[in-house]
Protein backbone atom coordinates (compact mmCIF):
# COMPACT_ATOMS: atom_id res chain seq x y z
CA UNK A 1 0.00 0.00 0.00
CA UNK A 2 1.55 3.31 -0.90
CA UNK A 3 1.64 6.25 1.36
CA UNK A 4 -0.75 8.31 -0.69
CA UNK A 5 -3.52 5.79 -0.81
CA UNK A 6 -7.02 7.25 -0.45
CA UNK A 7 -7.29 5.82 3.04
CA UNK A 8 -4.31 7.78 4.26
CA UNK A 9 -5.58 11.06 2.80
CA UNK A 10 -9.00 10.32 4.19
CA UNK A 11 -7.79 10.20 7.76
CA UNK A 12 -5.65 13.29 7.34
CA UNK A 13 -8.68 15.17 6.03
CA UNK A 14 -10.93 13.93 8.81
CA UNK A 15 -8.28 14.82 11.37
CA UNK A 16 -8.02 18.32 9.93
CA UNK A 17 -11.78 18.78 10.08
CA UNK A 18 -11.84 17.62 13.69
CA UNK A 19 -9.03 20.04 14.47
CA UNK A 20 -10.70 23.03 12.84
CA UNK A 21 -14.11 22.14 14.22
CA UNK A 22 -12.65 22.03 17.71
CA UNK A 23 -10.71 25.27 17.42
CA UNK A 24 -13.20 27.31 15.43
CA UNK A 25 -16.54 26.01 16.66
CA UNK A 26 -16.27 24.25 20.00
CA UNK A 27 -13.68 26.36 21.84
CA UNK A 28 -15.79 29.54 21.72
CA UNK A 29 -18.70 27.74 23.40
CA UNK A 30 -16.46 26.22 26.05
CA UNK A 31 -14.86 29.54 26.87
CA UNK A 32 -18.22 31.22 27.35
CA UNK A 33 -19.16 28.68 30.01
CA UNK A 34 -15.75 28.68 31.61
CA UNK A 35 -15.81 32.44 32.04
CA UNK A 36 -19.45 32.48 33.12
CA UNK A 37 -18.71 29.97 35.88
CA UNK A 38 -15.35 31.51 36.79
CA UNK A 39 -16.77 32.35 40.21
CA UNK A 40 -18.72 29.16 40.58
CA UNK A 41 -22.38 28.45 40.27
CA UNK A 42 -23.28 31.03 42.89
CA UNK A 43 -21.47 33.72 40.89
CA UNK A 44 -23.37 32.64 37.81
CA UNK A 45 -26.74 32.76 39.54
CA UNK A 46 -25.90 36.11 41.06
CA UNK A 47 -25.04 37.58 37.65
CA UNK A 48 -28.34 36.31 36.33
CA UNK A 49 -30.15 38.46 38.85
CA UNK A 50 -28.45 41.67 37.76
CA UNK A 51 -31.43 44.02 37.07
CA UNK A 52 -29.95 45.53 33.90
CA UNK A 53 -29.34 42.09 32.46
CA UNK A 54 -32.90 41.05 33.24
CA UNK A 55 -34.39 44.11 31.62
CA UNK A 56 -32.11 43.62 28.60
CA UNK A 57 -33.33 40.06 28.37
CA UNK A 58 -36.96 41.19 28.52
CA UNK A 59 -36.36 43.84 25.89
CA UNK A 60 -34.79 41.27 23.59
CA UNK A 61 -37.83 39.03 24.02
CA UNK A 62 -40.14 41.93 23.30
CA UNK A 63 -38.33 42.96 20.12
CA UNK A 64 -38.32 39.38 18.84
CA UNK A 65 -41.97 38.91 19.81
CA UNK A 66 -42.96 41.74 17.50
CA UNK A 67 -40.46 41.44 14.66
CA UNK A 68 -40.64 37.67 14.17
CA UNK A 69 -44.44 37.30 13.68
CA UNK A 70 -44.57 40.23 11.27
CA UNK A 71 -41.76 38.81 9.18
CA UNK A 72 -43.28 35.35 9.33
CA UNK A 73 -46.52 36.67 7.91
CA UNK A 74 -44.65 38.62 5.28
CA UNK A 75 -42.45 35.66 4.40
CA UNK A 76 -45.45 33.43 3.94
CA UNK A 77 -47.39 35.89 1.81
CA UNK A 78 -44.32 36.73 -0.25
CA UNK A 79 -43.47 33.08 -0.86
CA UNK A 80 -47.06 32.36 -1.81
CA UNK A 81 -47.22 35.30 -4.20
CA UNK A 82 -43.92 34.50 -5.83
CA UNK A 83 -44.50 30.80 -6.33
CA UNK A 84 -48.19 30.90 -7.28
CA UNK A 85 -48.58 33.87 -9.56
CA UNK A 86 -46.83 34.99 -12.71
CA UNK A 87 -45.97 38.64 -12.84
CA UNK A 88 -43.23 40.83 -14.26
CA UNK A 89 -40.35 41.79 -12.02
CA UNK A 90 -40.31 38.56 -10.05
CA UNK A 91 -36.54 38.24 -10.11
CA UNK A 92 -36.20 41.82 -9.06
CA UNK A 93 -38.38 41.16 -6.03
CA UNK A 94 -36.35 38.09 -5.14
CA UNK A 95 -33.20 40.19 -5.24
CA UNK A 96 -34.77 42.79 -3.01
CA UNK A 97 -35.90 40.19 -0.49
CA UNK A 98 -32.31 39.00 -0.26
CA UNK A 99 -30.76 42.42 -0.03
CA UNK A 100 -30.78 42.71 3.79
CA UNK A 101 -28.28 39.84 3.72
CA UNK A 102 -25.93 41.85 1.57
CA UNK A 103 -26.18 45.10 3.50
CA UNK A 104 -23.96 45.46 6.52
CA UNK A 105 -26.04 45.64 9.72
CA UNK A 106 -24.29 48.86 10.66
CA UNK A 107 -25.38 50.43 7.38
CA UNK A 108 -28.94 49.23 7.99
CA UNK A 109 -28.88 50.97 11.35
CA UNK A 110 -27.46 54.11 9.79
CA UNK A 111 -30.21 54.21 7.18
CA UNK A 112 -32.95 54.18 9.79
CA UNK A 113 -31.10 56.75 11.81
CA UNK A 114 -31.06 59.01 8.75
CA UNK A 115 -34.79 58.52 8.24
CA UNK A 116 -36.11 58.73 11.76
CA UNK A 117 -33.38 60.70 13.49
CA UNK A 118 -33.85 64.24 14.70
CA UNK A 119 -32.35 65.66 11.52
CA UNK A 120 -33.75 62.90 9.35
CA UNK A 121 -36.50 63.15 6.77
CA UNK A 122 -39.23 62.30 9.16
CA UNK A 123 -37.53 63.94 12.12
CA UNK A 124 -39.70 67.04 12.29
CA UNK A 125 -42.84 65.03 11.74
CA UNK A 126 -41.86 62.70 14.54
CA UNK A 127 -41.11 65.56 16.88
CA UNK A 128 -44.46 67.13 16.17
CA UNK A 129 -46.31 64.02 17.19
CA UNK A 130 -43.87 63.28 19.95
CA UNK A 131 -42.98 59.87 18.58
CA UNK A 132 -39.51 58.69 19.44
CA UNK A 133 -38.18 55.96 17.22
CA UNK A 134 -34.44 56.40 17.39
CA UNK A 135 -32.81 55.50 20.70
CA UNK A 136 -36.08 53.89 21.68
CA UNK A 137 -37.75 50.50 21.41
CA UNK A 138 -39.55 51.13 18.05
CA UNK A 139 -36.18 51.81 16.40
CA UNK A 140 -34.81 48.53 17.69
CA UNK A 141 -37.86 46.71 16.36
CA UNK A 142 -37.67 48.33 12.93
CA UNK A 143 -33.96 47.57 12.57
CA UNK A 144 -34.54 43.96 13.63
CA UNK A 145 -37.40 43.63 11.16
CA UNK A 146 -35.16 44.82 8.35
CA UNK A 147 -32.34 42.44 9.21
CA UNK A 148 -34.53 39.36 9.66
CA UNK A 149 -36.87 40.02 6.73
CA UNK A 150 -35.46 37.38 4.35
CA UNK A 151 -35.36 34.34 6.65
CA UNK A 152 -38.88 32.91 6.41
CA UNK A 153 -39.36 33.82 2.75
CA UNK A 154 -36.07 32.20 1.80
CA UNK A 155 -37.01 28.94 3.48
CA UNK A 156 -40.48 28.81 1.98
CA UNK A 157 -39.87 29.87 -1.61
CA UNK A 158 -37.88 26.79 -2.73
CA UNK A 159 -40.18 24.50 -0.73
CA UNK A 160 -43.39 25.88 -2.21
CA UNK A 161 -41.82 25.91 -5.65
CA UNK A 162 -40.96 22.23 -5.50
CA UNK A 163 -44.35 21.21 -4.16
CA UNK A 164 -46.27 22.76 -7.01
CA UNK A 165 -49.84 23.92 -6.83
CA UNK A 166 -51.74 20.81 -7.95
CA UNK A 167 -52.99 19.94 -4.47
CA UNK A 168 -54.37 23.41 -3.89
CA UNK A 169 -56.08 23.46 -7.26
CA UNK A 170 -57.66 20.11 -6.53
CA UNK A 171 -58.89 21.50 -3.20
CA UNK A 172 -60.44 24.53 -4.83
CA UNK A 173 -62.02 22.45 -7.59
CA UNK A 174 -63.59 20.23 -4.97
CA UNK A 175 -65.26 23.30 -3.55
CA UNK A 176 -63.03 24.32 -0.69
CA UNK A 177 -62.91 28.00 0.14
CA UNK A 178 -59.61 29.82 0.06
CA UNK A 179 -59.29 29.70 3.83
CA UNK A 180 -60.07 26.01 3.95
CA UNK A 181 -57.39 25.38 1.33
CA UNK A 182 -54.99 27.52 3.30
CA UNK A 183 -55.66 25.70 6.54
CA UNK A 184 -55.94 22.15 5.28
CA UNK A 185 -53.50 22.05 2.37
CA UNK A 186 -51.06 24.92 2.09
CA UNK A 187 -49.98 25.34 5.68
CA UNK A 188 -49.66 21.63 6.56
CA UNK A 189 -47.56 21.15 3.43
CA UNK A 190 -45.01 23.76 4.37
CA UNK A 191 -45.30 23.33 8.14
CA UNK A 192 -41.75 22.22 8.84
CA UNK A 193 -40.12 24.63 6.46
CA UNK A 194 -42.16 27.42 7.96
CA UNK A 195 -41.10 26.47 11.49
CA UNK A 196 -37.49 26.25 10.46
CA UNK A 197 -37.64 29.73 8.92
CA UNK A 198 -39.23 31.11 12.07
CA UNK A 199 -36.53 29.59 14.26
CA UNK A 200 -33.70 31.01 12.18
CA UNK A 201 -35.46 34.37 12.08
CA UNK A 202 -35.86 34.31 15.84
CA UNK A 203 -32.23 33.39 16.51
CA UNK A 204 -31.06 36.25 14.37
CA UNK A 205 -33.59 38.68 15.85
CA UNK A 206 -32.44 37.95 19.39
CA UNK A 207 -28.77 38.07 18.51
CA UNK A 208 -28.72 41.10 16.24
CA UNK A 209 -26.00 43.49 17.24
CA UNK A 210 -24.73 45.86 14.57
CA UNK A 211 -27.96 47.45 13.42
CA UNK A 212 -29.40 47.62 16.91
CA UNK A 213 -26.19 49.09 18.25
CA UNK A 214 -26.54 52.14 15.99
CA UNK A 215 -30.15 52.77 16.94
CA UNK A 216 -30.27 51.95 20.62
CA UNK A 217 -28.41 54.84 22.19
CA UNK A 218 -27.17 52.42 24.87
CA UNK A 219 -29.37 53.53 27.71
CA UNK A 220 -28.80 50.96 30.43
CA UNK A 221 -31.87 49.15 31.61
CA UNK A 222 -33.93 50.82 28.90
CA UNK A 223 -32.74 50.39 25.36
CA UNK A 224 -30.00 47.81 25.76
CA UNK A 225 -30.88 44.46 24.25
CA UNK A 226 -29.07 41.41 25.55
CA UNK A 227 -26.22 41.54 22.98
CA UNK A 228 -25.70 45.23 23.70
CA UNK A 229 -25.75 44.58 27.43
CA UNK A 230 -23.01 41.99 26.86
CA UNK A 231 -20.91 44.63 25.14
CA UNK A 232 -21.39 47.10 27.97
CA UNK A 233 -20.51 44.56 30.65
CA UNK A 234 -17.51 43.31 28.71
CA UNK A 235 -16.14 46.80 28.19
CA UNK A 236 -16.49 47.41 31.93
CA UNK A 237 -14.27 44.35 32.48
CA UNK A 238 -17.21 42.69 34.19
CA UNK A 239 -16.29 39.39 32.65
CA UNK A 240 -18.43 37.03 34.73
CA UNK A 241 -21.59 39.02 34.12
CA UNK A 242 -20.85 39.51 30.44
CA UNK A 243 -20.29 35.83 29.86
CA UNK A 244 -23.29 34.88 31.96
CA UNK A 245 -25.47 37.00 29.69
CA UNK A 246 -23.65 35.48 26.70
CA UNK A 247 -24.36 31.98 27.97
CA UNK A 248 -28.09 32.68 27.70
CA UNK A 249 -27.63 33.44 24.02
CA UNK A 250 -25.44 30.36 23.59
CA UNK A 251 -28.28 28.27 25.01
CA UNK A 252 -30.61 29.90 22.52
CA UNK A 253 -28.36 29.13 19.58
CA UNK A 254 -27.72 25.54 20.68
CA UNK A 255 -31.46 25.08 21.12
CA UNK A 256 -31.96 26.46 17.61
CA UNK A 257 -29.53 23.87 16.27
CA UNK A 258 -31.29 21.01 18.08
CA UNK A 259 -34.70 22.09 16.81
CA UNK A 260 -33.18 22.37 13.37
CA UNK A 261 -32.01 18.74 13.41
CA UNK A 262 -35.46 17.57 14.50
CA UNK A 263 -37.21 19.64 11.85
CA UNK A 264 -34.85 18.51 9.12
CA UNK A 265 -35.64 14.90 9.91
CA UNK A 266 -39.33 15.71 9.52
CA UNK A 267 -38.81 17.55 6.24
CA UNK A 268 -36.88 14.61 4.82
CA UNK A 269 -39.41 12.07 5.98
CA UNK A 270 -42.02 13.74 3.83
Amino acid sequence: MNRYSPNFTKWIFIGLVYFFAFIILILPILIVFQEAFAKGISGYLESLQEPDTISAFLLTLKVAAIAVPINTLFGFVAAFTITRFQFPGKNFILTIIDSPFAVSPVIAGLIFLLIFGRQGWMGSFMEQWDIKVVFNTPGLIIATMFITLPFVARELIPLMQSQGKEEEEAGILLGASFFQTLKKIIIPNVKWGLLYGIILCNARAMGEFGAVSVLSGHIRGQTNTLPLQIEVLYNEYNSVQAFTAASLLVFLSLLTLVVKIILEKNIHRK
Partner: protein
Amino acid sequence: MTVFYLSLMVVIPLVGLFFSTAKIGWEGILGVFREDRIRAALFLSFYVGSISAIINMFVGFLFAWVLVRYDFFGRKIIDTLVDLPFTLPTAVAGIALTTIYSQKGWIGKLFAPYDIKIAYTPIGIIIALVFIGFPFVVRAVQPVLEDLPKELEEGAKCLGASPFTTFWRVIFPELWPSILSGTGMAFARGIGEYGSVVFISGNIPGKTEILPLLIITKLEQYEYSKATGIAVVMLIISFSIMFLINLAQNRASRRLT
Protein backbone atom coordinates in the same frame (compact mmCIF):
# COMPACT_ATOMS: atom_id res chain seq x y z
CA MET B 1 -49.10 43.36 -0.16
CA THR B 2 -45.72 41.75 -0.66
CA VAL B 3 -44.62 44.64 -2.78
CA PHE B 4 -45.99 47.15 -0.35
CA TYR B 5 -44.22 45.72 2.68
CA LEU B 6 -41.02 45.21 0.76
CA SER B 7 -40.96 48.76 -0.49
CA LEU B 8 -41.76 50.05 2.96
CA MET B 9 -39.06 48.05 4.70
CA VAL B 10 -36.33 47.71 2.10
CA VAL B 11 -36.68 49.84 -0.99
CA ILE B 12 -37.45 53.16 0.68
CA PRO B 13 -34.57 52.85 3.13
CA LEU B 14 -32.06 51.87 0.44
CA VAL B 15 -33.21 54.56 -1.96
CA GLY B 16 -33.21 56.93 0.97
CA LEU B 17 -29.55 56.29 1.56
CA PHE B 18 -28.74 57.27 -2.00
CA PHE B 19 -30.79 60.45 -1.66
CA SER B 20 -28.90 61.37 1.47
CA THR B 21 -25.77 60.84 -0.55
CA ALA B 22 -27.05 63.12 -3.24
CA LYS B 23 -27.29 65.76 -0.55
CA ILE B 24 -23.63 65.45 0.33
CA GLY B 25 -22.85 65.13 -3.41
CA TRP B 26 -19.78 63.87 -5.22
CA GLU B 27 -17.69 66.16 -3.19
CA GLY B 28 -18.88 64.36 -0.07
CA ILE B 29 -18.12 60.91 -1.42
CA LEU B 30 -14.71 61.91 -2.67
CA GLY B 31 -14.09 63.54 0.67
CA VAL B 32 -14.32 60.07 2.17
CA PHE B 33 -11.19 59.05 0.33
CA ARG B 34 -9.33 62.12 1.40
CA GLU B 35 -9.28 61.32 5.08
CA ASP B 36 -6.32 59.15 6.05
CA ARG B 37 -8.16 57.34 8.77
CA ILE B 38 -10.96 56.31 6.41
CA ARG B 39 -8.49 55.26 3.74
CA ALA B 40 -6.69 53.08 6.26
CA ALA B 41 -9.97 51.48 7.35
CA LEU B 42 -11.00 50.93 3.74
CA PHE B 43 -7.71 49.25 2.98
CA LEU B 44 -7.85 47.15 6.15
CA SER B 45 -11.42 46.01 5.57
CA PHE B 46 -10.67 44.77 2.08
CA TYR B 47 -7.31 43.34 3.02
CA VAL B 48 -8.60 41.22 5.91
CA GLY B 49 -11.74 40.48 3.89
CA SER B 50 -9.70 39.05 1.01
CA ILE B 51 -7.34 37.00 3.17
CA SER B 52 -10.19 35.53 5.18
CA ALA B 53 -12.08 34.81 1.95
CA ILE B 54 -9.15 32.73 0.70
CA ILE B 55 -8.91 30.85 4.01
CA ASN B 56 -12.67 30.35 4.00
CA MET B 57 -12.48 28.88 0.53
CA PHE B 58 -10.03 26.18 1.62
CA VAL B 59 -11.46 25.45 5.06
CA GLY B 60 -15.02 25.50 3.74
CA PHE B 61 -14.16 23.20 0.88
CA LEU B 62 -12.34 20.80 3.22
CA PHE B 63 -15.38 20.61 5.50
CA ALA B 64 -17.78 20.08 2.61
CA TRP B 65 -15.57 17.39 1.10
CA VAL B 66 -15.08 15.44 4.33
CA LEU B 67 -18.72 15.74 5.39
CA VAL B 68 -20.01 14.48 2.06
CA ARG B 69 -17.42 11.88 1.11
CA TYR B 70 -16.43 10.21 4.36
CA ASP B 71 -18.39 8.50 7.02
CA PHE B 72 -16.80 8.78 10.42
CA PHE B 73 -17.58 9.12 14.07
CA GLY B 74 -19.04 12.54 14.87
CA ARG B 75 -19.89 13.44 11.30
CA LYS B 76 -23.48 14.38 12.14
CA ILE B 77 -22.40 16.54 15.07
CA ILE B 78 -19.83 18.45 13.06
CA ASP B 79 -22.33 18.86 10.26
CA THR B 80 -24.74 20.47 12.72
CA LEU B 81 -22.09 22.60 14.38
CA VAL B 82 -21.18 24.18 11.04
CA ASP B 83 -24.41 26.14 11.42
CA LEU B 84 -23.32 27.50 14.78
CA PRO B 85 -21.82 30.72 13.39
CA PHE B 86 -25.17 31.42 11.73
CA THR B 87 -27.11 31.10 14.96
CA LEU B 88 -24.61 32.34 17.53
CA PRO B 89 -25.05 36.08 18.11
CA THR B 90 -22.04 37.91 16.78
CA ALA B 91 -21.42 39.75 20.04
CA VAL B 92 -21.08 36.43 21.85
CA ALA B 93 -18.71 35.13 19.21
CA GLY B 94 -16.76 38.36 19.51
CA ILE B 95 -16.13 38.22 23.25
CA ALA B 96 -15.47 34.47 23.17
CA LEU B 97 -12.89 34.72 20.40
CA THR B 98 -11.22 37.70 22.02
CA THR B 99 -10.87 35.79 25.29
CA ILE B 100 -9.40 32.76 23.54
CA TYR B 101 -6.89 34.70 21.47
CA SER B 102 -5.86 37.43 23.89
CA GLN B 103 -2.40 37.02 25.37
CA LYS B 104 -3.74 35.25 28.43
CA GLY B 105 -6.28 33.16 26.51
CA TRP B 106 -6.08 29.46 25.72
CA ILE B 107 -4.63 29.90 22.25
CA GLY B 108 -3.17 33.38 22.61
CA LYS B 109 -0.97 31.98 25.41
CA LEU B 110 0.61 29.50 23.03
CA PHE B 111 1.77 32.27 20.74
CA ALA B 112 2.70 34.84 23.34
CA PRO B 113 6.23 33.43 24.00
CA TYR B 114 7.05 33.97 20.33
CA ASP B 115 5.90 37.54 20.56
CA ILE B 116 3.00 36.92 18.24
CA LYS B 117 -0.12 38.81 19.15
CA ILE B 118 -3.39 37.64 17.69
CA ALA B 119 -6.16 39.55 19.38
CA TYR B 120 -6.08 43.31 18.75
CA THR B 121 -4.20 42.82 15.45
CA PRO B 122 -5.40 42.20 11.88
CA ILE B 123 -4.79 38.46 12.48
CA GLY B 124 -7.53 38.51 15.11
CA ILE B 125 -9.92 40.16 12.69
CA ILE B 126 -9.16 37.50 10.10
CA ILE B 127 -9.92 34.76 12.64
CA ALA B 128 -13.27 36.36 13.45
CA LEU B 129 -14.10 36.59 9.75
CA VAL B 130 -13.19 32.95 9.19
CA PHE B 131 -15.52 31.96 12.02
CA ILE B 132 -18.33 34.00 10.46
CA GLY B 133 -17.61 33.14 6.84
CA PHE B 134 -16.53 29.54 6.28
CA PRO B 135 -20.02 28.02 6.85
CA PHE B 136 -21.21 29.93 3.78
CA VAL B 137 -18.73 28.01 1.64
CA VAL B 138 -19.58 24.67 3.27
CA ARG B 139 -23.30 25.15 2.73
CA ALA B 140 -22.84 26.29 -0.87
CA VAL B 141 -20.55 23.41 -1.89
CA GLN B 142 -22.16 20.58 0.09
CA PRO B 143 -25.35 20.09 -1.97
CA VAL B 144 -23.48 20.28 -5.27
CA LEU B 145 -20.93 17.73 -4.11
CA GLU B 146 -23.70 15.43 -2.92
CA ASP B 147 -25.36 15.49 -6.34
CA LEU B 148 -22.12 14.86 -8.19
CA PRO B 149 -22.39 11.37 -9.70
CA LYS B 150 -19.64 9.02 -8.56
CA GLU B 151 -19.55 7.51 -12.04
CA LEU B 152 -17.73 10.56 -13.37
CA GLU B 153 -14.83 10.01 -11.04
CA GLU B 154 -14.77 6.28 -11.48
CA GLY B 155 -14.80 6.78 -15.21
CA ALA B 156 -11.83 9.09 -14.99
CA LYS B 157 -9.97 6.64 -12.81
CA CYS B 158 -10.68 3.76 -15.16
CA LEU B 159 -9.31 5.83 -18.02
CA GLY B 160 -6.06 6.07 -16.09
CA ALA B 161 -6.26 9.49 -14.48
CA SER B 162 -4.30 10.04 -11.26
CA PRO B 163 -6.27 11.17 -8.19
CA PHE B 164 -4.94 14.65 -8.70
CA THR B 165 -5.94 14.80 -12.36
CA THR B 166 -9.36 13.40 -11.49
CA PHE B 167 -9.87 16.10 -8.94
CA TRP B 168 -8.53 18.93 -11.04
CA ARG B 169 -10.09 18.04 -14.39
CA VAL B 170 -13.30 16.29 -13.36
CA ILE B 171 -14.52 17.30 -9.91
CA PHE B 172 -13.22 20.79 -9.54
CA PRO B 173 -14.83 22.29 -12.66
CA GLU B 174 -18.21 21.09 -11.40
CA LEU B 175 -17.74 22.62 -7.98
CA TRP B 176 -16.11 25.85 -9.03
CA PRO B 177 -19.31 27.94 -9.35
CA SER B 178 -20.57 26.95 -5.91
CA ILE B 179 -17.19 27.56 -4.29
CA LEU B 180 -17.16 31.00 -5.86
CA SER B 181 -20.64 31.92 -4.72
CA GLY B 182 -20.01 30.68 -1.16
CA THR B 183 -16.76 32.57 -0.95
CA GLY B 184 -18.40 35.65 -2.38
CA MET B 185 -21.14 35.57 0.22
CA ALA B 186 -18.59 35.09 2.97
CA PHE B 187 -16.61 38.02 1.63
CA ALA B 188 -19.62 40.30 1.42
CA ARG B 189 -20.61 39.35 4.93
CA GLY B 190 -17.04 39.84 6.13
CA ILE B 191 -16.75 43.38 4.80
CA GLY B 192 -19.86 44.44 6.68
CA GLU B 193 -19.30 42.35 9.80
CA TYR B 194 -19.33 44.33 13.00
CA GLY B 195 -20.29 42.36 16.10
CA SER B 196 -17.64 39.70 16.12
CA VAL B 197 -14.88 41.99 14.91
CA VAL B 198 -15.37 44.98 17.16
CA PHE B 199 -14.13 43.14 20.23
CA ILE B 200 -11.15 41.29 18.82
CA SER B 201 -9.85 44.15 16.68
CA GLY B 202 -9.06 46.49 19.55
CA ASN B 203 -10.13 49.39 17.32
CA ILE B 204 -6.83 51.22 17.06
CA PRO B 205 -7.48 54.07 14.60
CA GLY B 206 -5.54 53.60 11.38
CA LYS B 207 -4.38 50.12 12.42
CA THR B 208 -7.20 47.78 13.34
CA GLU B 209 -10.22 49.95 12.69
CA ILE B 210 -12.61 48.49 10.15
CA LEU B 211 -15.14 50.39 8.04
CA PRO B 212 -18.37 49.51 9.92
CA LEU B 213 -16.76 50.58 13.16
CA LEU B 214 -15.66 53.85 11.63
CA ILE B 215 -19.27 54.50 10.59
CA ILE B 216 -20.33 54.15 14.20
CA THR B 217 -17.51 56.38 15.39
CA LYS B 218 -18.50 59.05 12.89
CA LEU B 219 -22.12 58.80 14.00
CA GLU B 220 -21.13 59.25 17.61
CA GLN B 221 -19.28 62.40 16.61
CA TYR B 222 -22.38 63.58 14.73
CA GLU B 223 -20.52 63.54 11.43
CA TYR B 224 -23.54 62.11 9.65
CA SER B 225 -22.45 63.02 6.15
CA LYS B 226 -19.08 61.31 6.55
CA ALA B 227 -20.82 58.21 7.89
CA THR B 228 -23.22 58.24 4.94
CA GLY B 229 -20.33 58.64 2.52
CA ILE B 230 -18.52 55.63 3.97
CA ALA B 231 -21.71 53.57 3.89
CA VAL B 232 -22.33 54.36 0.23
CA VAL B 233 -18.77 53.55 -0.76
CA MET B 234 -19.03 50.25 1.10
CA LEU B 235 -22.36 49.40 -0.53
CA ILE B 236 -21.12 50.22 -4.01
CA ILE B 237 -17.97 48.17 -3.61
CA SER B 238 -19.62 45.13 -2.09
CA PHE B 239 -22.49 45.14 -4.57
CA SER B 240 -20.04 45.32 -7.46
CA ILE B 241 -18.03 42.44 -6.03
CA MET B 242 -21.21 40.39 -5.78
CA PHE B 243 -22.01 41.34 -9.36
CA LEU B 244 -18.56 40.28 -10.58
CA ILE B 245 -18.82 36.96 -8.77
CA ASN B 246 -22.23 36.36 -10.32
CA LEU B 247 -20.75 37.09 -13.70
CA ALA B 248 -17.83 34.74 -13.18
CA GLN B 249 -20.20 32.11 -11.88
CA ASN B 250 -22.43 32.36 -14.95
CA ARG B 251 -19.40 32.01 -17.16
CA ALA B 252 -18.11 29.02 -15.26
CA SER B 253 -21.41 27.19 -15.40
CA ARG B 254 -21.93 28.02 -19.05
CA ARG B 255 -18.59 26.52 -19.97
CA LEU B 256 -19.69 23.25 -18.44
CA THR B 257 -22.77 22.75 -20.53
